[in-house]
C-alpha cells in the first residue's frame, strides 16, 4: 500500500450517469483506483466498460448529458495540496487542464483542429498557461516537436493536420499534451488507431518522455500486450466498475478476479508484447440498463455461485492487490 504522499490520483467510488431523472443510465457504477506519482497505471477493459467515460470525468469533459453522480477524484497538485476534481468550478478546471492534467485522445485523425497549423495548436497551450513571448513560444514548440521525434520540426510546425500521417498527428497530440509539463497525462488508447510499427514507436516515445519529464500516466487500453509493456500498475474495468487493481507483475502472476483471468487466458502469453487484440470472453458485456444484482460478471463466470448475487466491492485481498470478487482465486490463472 502506498503512503498517500506517493499518490498523485486516487479515485474513490466514482459514479457517472447519462440522461436525467428516471431515464438516467449509470455508465460508471463504482470506479476506484490509485495511481502512484511517476508511475503508469493501465486502465483496461473491453469496449464499453467505461474507460473513456472515466477519463472524461477526470478532465471535467463529460458531454452535456453526462454528470458525476457521486465519488471523489482526489488529485495531488504539484504544490502538494490535494484537490477533489469533482468539486472544481469551470475556472478551477481550466487552470487544472494543461499544467495539471493533460489528455491525449483516442482519435488522432479528428482531435486536431483542421484550420490551424500544428505549431499554432501546440503553442496555444503556452499562450494559455505560461507567460512567454511569442518568439519563446515558437522556440519551445519546435523543441517539443523535436522531443517527440518529428523530423524537420521547424518546417512541420507550419503544417496543417491534414498534411500529416496518423502517427505524426498522434506525436503532435503528445507534444501538445506535454508542453506544459503536466503532472498527470491521461492517454486514452493513444495507439489503437495506428498500425503496429507506429504503435511501438509511440509507446517507446511515451516511456522515454515519462522518465525525462517525470510524470504520471493514466494509460487506457484494451490491449494486454500494451499493458505488459507500459504499466506499473493495472486497474481492470468491467461494465462500469473496477474489479481488480494490482501491480503489473502481481496481476499477471497472481490474478485474483475471474474476469481478469478470462482476459489473460484469452491471449497466448508468449505473444504479449505483440500488441494483439483481446479475444472476448464467452458471452457478452451486459447492457448497462439490465445489470444483474451483485457481481456484474457472474452470468459469464465459470466459478459463479448463488452467493454472487450479493453486492460486492473492491477489497484488498493481499498487500496492494484489490479484487471485487467474494471468492479469492489467487494465482488460479
Amino acid at each position, binding site marked *: 500500500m502506498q503512503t498517500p504522499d506517493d499518490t498523485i490520483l486516487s479515485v474513490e467510488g466514482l459514479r457517472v450517469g447519462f440522461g436525467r431523472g428516471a431515464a438516467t443510465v449509470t455508465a460508471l457504477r463504482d470506479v476506484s483506483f490509485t495511481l502512484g506519482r511517476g508511475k503508469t497505471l493501465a486502465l483496461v477493459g473491453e469496449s464499453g466498460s467505461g474507460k473513456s467515460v472515466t477519463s472524461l470525468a477526470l*478532465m471535467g*469533459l463529460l458531454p452535456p448529458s453526462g454528470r458525476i453522480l457521486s465519488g471523489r477524484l482526489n488529485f495531488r497538485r504539484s504544490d502538494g495540496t490535494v484537490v477533489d476534481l469533482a468539486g472544481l468550478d*469551470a475556472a478551477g*478546471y*481550466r*487552470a*487544472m*487542464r*494543461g499544467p495539471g492534467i*493533460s*489528455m491525449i*485522445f483516442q*482519435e488522432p485523425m*479528428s*482531435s*486536431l*483542429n*483542421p*484550420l*490551424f497549423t500544428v505549431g499554432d495548436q501546440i503553442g*496555444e*497551450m503556452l499562450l*494559455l*498557461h505560461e507567460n512567454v513571448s511569442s518568439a519563446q513560444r515558437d522556440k519551445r514548440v519546435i523543441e517539443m516537436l523535436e522531443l517527440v521525434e518529428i523530423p524537420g520540426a521547424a518546417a512541420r510546425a507550419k503544417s*496543417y493536420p*491534414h498534411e500529416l500521417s496518423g502517427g505524426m498527428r498522434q506525436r503532435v*497530440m503528445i507534444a*501538445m499534451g506535454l508542453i506544459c509539463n503536466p503532472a498527470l497525462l491521461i492517454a486514452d488508447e493513444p495507439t489503437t488507431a495506428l498500425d503496429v510499427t507506429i504503435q511501438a514507436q509511440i509507446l517507446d516515445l511515451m516511456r522515454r518522455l515519462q522518465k525525462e519529464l517525470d510524470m504520471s500516466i493514466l494509460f487506457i487500453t484494451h490491449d494486454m500486450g500494451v499493458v505488459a509493456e507500459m504499466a506499473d500498475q493495472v486497474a481492470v474495468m468491467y461494465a462500469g466498475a473496477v474489479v481488480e487493481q494490482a501491480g503489473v507483475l502481481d496481476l499477471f502472476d497472481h490474478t485474483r478476479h475471474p474476469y481478469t483471468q478470462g482476459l489473460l487466458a484469452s491471449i497466448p502469453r508468449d505473444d504479449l508484447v505483440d500488441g494483439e487484440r483481446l479475444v472476448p470472453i464467452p458471452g457478452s458485456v451486459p447492457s448497462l440498463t439490465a445489470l444483474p444484482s451483485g457481481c456484474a460478471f457472474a452470468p459469464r463466470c465459470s466459478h459463479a455461485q448463488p452467493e454472487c448475487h450479493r453486492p460486492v466491492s473492491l477489497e484488498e485481498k493481499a498487500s496492494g492487490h484489490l479484487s471485487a470478487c467474494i471468492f479469492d482465486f489467487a494465482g488460479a490463472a
Partner: protein
Amino acid sequence: MRSYLLRRLIGMIVVIFLVLTIAFVLVRLAPGDPASLMLGPDASPEEVAALRVRLGLDQPIIAQFGSFLANALRGDLGQSLFFNQPVTTVLASRAEPTIVLALFSLLVALVIATPIGIWAAYRRGSVLDQTSITTAMLAASVPSFLTGLVFQRYLATDLGWFPASGYGGAGAGFTERMRHLILPAITLGITNSALILRFTRASMLDILGEDYVRTARAKGMTERRVVLRHALKNAGIPIITVVGLTFALLVSGAVVTERVFNLPGMGNLVVNAVLRRDYPVIQGTLIVVAALYVLVNLITDLLYLAVDKRVKY
C-alpha cells in the same frame, strides 16, 4: 492553383456566353415582332420598318446574334428605347443604390444572424434557442414589402427617424444617400437573416460536437475562446457559402424593396423597363445581374481557399 483559376475563368466565360444567349433569345421569344411591340399599337408601318433596320431585325438571325455578342463584348448593350441613352449609361446610374443596398442589408443580416445562431447552437434546446428559431421562421415568412411598409409607416412617417422614400434627390451627398438606405437595408436584412441564422446554427451545432472542440476544452481555455476561435472558424466555411448565395439573391431581391422605398436602383429600373417594353434595358439588367452573380461566386470560392487550407483546386 493557376490551372484552377484558368478553369474558373473559362467557366465564367461559358456562363456569361450562355446568359448573353438567353438574353438574346428571350427578347426574340416575345410574341410578335419586337419592333412593333416596342413601338406599341399606334405606330405606323414606316416607323416599325425604320426601327427594324435600326435594331438590325432585317438581318438573318445568326448575323443578329453575332453583332449582339460583338457589341456586348465591347460593352455596348444597345440603346434604351425609353431613355434614348446607351443601356450601360442607364444601368450605371442605377447600380449604386442596388449594390450598396445589397451590401448594407447583408451586413444587417450578418449582425442579426451570426451571434444569435452561434448562441442558439451553444445553448441548443434552451428557451433562447427555440425562440430564435421561431422568430427566424416568422421573419422569413413575412414578405419584405409588408415589413417595409410597416417600417415606413411607423419609423419614417410617424416617428420621422428615417426618410420614408427616395434616395435624397439629385446632388444628395453620400451621408444623405446612406440615410435613405437604412430602412430598406433593415427590411431586406431581416428577411435574409433567417436563412443565415439557420445555417449558422446548424453548422455550429455540427462543429461543437467535433473531437477537436473537445481537445480545445481539454487545453484549458475559456468557453468563449473554444467557441469563437476553434469552432467558429470551422463553422464559417458553410456560412460563407450561404452568405455568397444570399448576396446574389439580394441583388435580385432588391426589386420589391426598391419599389416600396422608391429607390432609383436597378430593381425599380427593370420593373419599369418591363412595363415600358424597353427590351434592351431588360436584356442589360439580366446580363449585369448574372455577371454579379458569377463574380460573387468566384469571391466565395476564393474565400474558401483563404480559410481552409485543405481545399485544393
